[in-house]
């Protein structure tokens, strides 16, 4: 059995990946009431885009750039224009159902047009292990965790310190008032979709070396992101971060000390506990809507 510190660090690594997906999920909900049930597949797909670009002969770094750009175009702009905008006119529920259909379509497309087999994927993080206080810790997990935290901090700085970021927050908190003072609400919502697409592309880049590129890998990721978002309060970037990290760590510890068989149940068990004792989420505030 690995040591506790290593378990926690690798949990933080996967947790940071969950957090990226959960934050994107939360942003979409905040700005456009989109509950994206395809979020897991959104994390699965960019790795395949990058693999396809590499197959065409591009080096890894270029494949990353093109993969992120393609993700922004497809999972950001096209997703919003072609699916969210038309469906949202019919309501939040039809849109949520449409994203479920999309998740199946994405999964099946990758299976049919790329491969049903798991594909190896290069890692941007170094392998090997590091010795901390005599305990050995996976260097890759440590790097993944650090990278995830850097991305979240950068996103937070953007949201809080730039005028565009604050306009995005304003558009999410009160779209009518945002419009009244001249904030281009529609453009802010589009920007959120692009940011989500970049977040899932980065999550994909981090997670795929660990779990391989597989058409079905979005299933667990989607659940973890969804639960992380709810555990964190659903309407908070900070909450989604904490939720993601928490699930990553608890998940890993449970796998080691309880049983790997029950591993998939861990996020859901955590969800039930949080809903029972803190329905507004760990960091969330009770929902308040002003008209």
């Amino acid at each position, binding site marked *: 059995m690995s040591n506790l510190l290593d378990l926690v660090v690798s949990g933080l690594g996967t947790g940071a990946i969950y957090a990226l997906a959960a934050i994107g999920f939360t942003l979409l909900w905040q700005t456009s009431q989109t509950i994206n049930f395809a979020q897991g597949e959104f994390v699965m797909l960019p790795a395949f885009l990058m693999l396809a670009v590499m197959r065409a002969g591009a080096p890894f770094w270029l494949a990353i750039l093109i993969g992120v750009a393609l993700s922004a175009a497809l999972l950001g702009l096209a997703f919003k224009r072609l699916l969210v905008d038309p469906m949202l006119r019919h309501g939040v529920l039809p849109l949520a159902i449409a994203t479920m259909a999309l998740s199946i379509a994405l999964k099946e497309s990758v299976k049919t047009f790329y491969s049903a087999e798991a594909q190896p994927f290069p890692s941007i993080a170094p392998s090997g292990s590091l010795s901390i206080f005599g305990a050995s810790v996976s260097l890759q997990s440590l790097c993944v965790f650090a990278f995830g935290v850097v991305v979240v901090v950068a996103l937070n700085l953007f949201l809080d310190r730039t005028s565009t970021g604050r306009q995005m*927050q304003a558009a999410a*908190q009160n779209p*009518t008032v945002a*419009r009244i*003072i*001249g904030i281009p609400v529609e453009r802010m919502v589009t920007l959120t979709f692009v940011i989500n697409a970049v977040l899932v592309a980065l999550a994909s880049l981090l997670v795929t070396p660990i779990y391989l590129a597989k058409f079905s890998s979005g299933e667990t990721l989607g659940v973890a992101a969804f639960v992380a978002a709810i555990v964190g309060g659903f309407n908070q970037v900070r909450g989604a971060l904490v939720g993601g990290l928490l699930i990553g760590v608890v998940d890993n510890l449970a796998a080691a000390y309880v049983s790997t068989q029950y591993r998939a149940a861990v996020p859901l068990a955590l969800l039930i506990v949080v809903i029972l004792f803190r329905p507004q989420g760990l960091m969330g505030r009770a929902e308040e809507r002003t008209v």
Partner: protein
Amino acid sequence: MSDAILEVENLVGGYGEMTILNGASFKAPRGAITTVIGPNGAGKSTAFKAIFGLLKLRAGRVLFDGADVTGATQRRLIAAGLCYIPQGRNVFPELSVRHNIELGLVAAPPDLRDGAQRVEAALDRFPSLRKKAGQQASTLSGGEQKQLEIARGLLLDPKLVMIDEPSIGLSPLMVRQTFDMLRALRDRGVSVLLIEQNARSTLEISDYGLVLELGRTRMFDRAEKVLADPRVVHLFLGGSIEGDAA
């Protein structure tokens, strides 16, 4: 230059199939406070939304400062000098007070250089906002939130301020302060178009009164004339002009 800063003609529109505005026409004279009164559901707030491009009109025209702005974007209306402060709470609860106010600069012309000074001046004008500048706007009292909305709305020196029931939920002292401020604005040449339930006391500080009923203009006159009209007295007591005339 017309003597009216705002002129609406024959506004027809509503929500979905429901028609709320039935051909309302009125003017807001320049440099004056005009108060819109009328029974609940008369379409006062809806008329404001229509003027500010938030409601699709089936017919009618909106002229602002001599230009046709029917269906214009909010950005364009703000740039033209129009400011709209809706009823209720219109702040971004989780942003700081200062950031809330700063967002009033979003639609500023690109050559505006003194944005930061304007924000400081706005905070100076409202000491309680200055004191809480770093706090989330959700921590403000109702009166302070209204002050924030007004401070934000005045950032770009609007020519006309349209404000919908600012006194709702405010203490009598805050109401008086708010009205004093609107009068001070008027004295600086800013035009004010105001909706109020508390018609009598509002008309007393207004220059013009406008009675809206069933989506139509029933009366427009100097405030003291409207105040003295026996039909309006009936309206104050909860009746309608329509019923009285019939």
